[in-house]
């Protein structure tokens, strides 16, 4: 596709429910990032993939968060047993492999509300 596509755009989950958020990166982009963004704040890094390899998952807030990118393209962020504090916008970004000054292209995000 022309840009990064995320689905669903909005998700309402009951506390304790599992959710799966999907990201379709720009075709051919090697790098893929997931970020969590609270209202009016900057995005906070969750995890990073280079192709199918998850090189950094230091930002995942708990073991309830899990991300995968099995074929080096589409990625899924899964949250198990959702809690109210998980409510946020989840942003996915992709970028080509490039030295130093990489531009990240962001999707529109998935707004998750846990009730």
């Amino acid at each position, binding site marked *: 596709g022309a840009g990064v596509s995320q689905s669903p755009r909005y998700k309402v989950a009951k506390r304790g429910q599992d959710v799966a958020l999907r990201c379709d990166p720009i075709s051919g982009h090697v790098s893929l990032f997931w970020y969590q963004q609270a209202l009016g704040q*900057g995005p906070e890094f969750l995890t990073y993939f280079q192709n199918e390899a998850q090189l950094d998952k230091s930002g995942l807030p708990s073991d309830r968060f899990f991300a995968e990118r099995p074929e080096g393209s589409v990625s899924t962020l899964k949250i198990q047993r959702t809690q109210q504090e998980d409510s946020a916008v989840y942003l996915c970004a992709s970028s080509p492999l490039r030295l*130093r000054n*990489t531009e990240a*292209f962001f999707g529109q995000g998935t707004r998750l509300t846990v009730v």
Partner: protein
Amino acid sequence: TQLLEQSPQFLSIQEGENLTVYCNSSSVFSSLQWYRQEPGEGPVLLVTVVTGGEVKKLKRLTFQFGDARKDSSLHITAAQPGDTGLYLCAGGRGYGGATNKLIFGTGTLLAVQP
């Protein structure tokens, strides 16, 4: 934990005024990017600076990277209502010379009143 602090956090100004947004850190970054984000959308890249002391201009926007590559500023001249949005700086941390992990600042919410 945000390593990049932006100031001010909120800014409401009248059309035609000038403004400066600051992005500060105690860490050194290999590159610094500025993004603008509108409600319901993802951040969109405005500029990338990579050299200490570098200044880049994009129409009415002027970006500067600090000499020590720890801080940056964004100056907008004659602000317009279309400049309204959340401005984010993001520092690049290389993975052994490959693509950057971007660490975002705390954000500056700008509202330009007509």
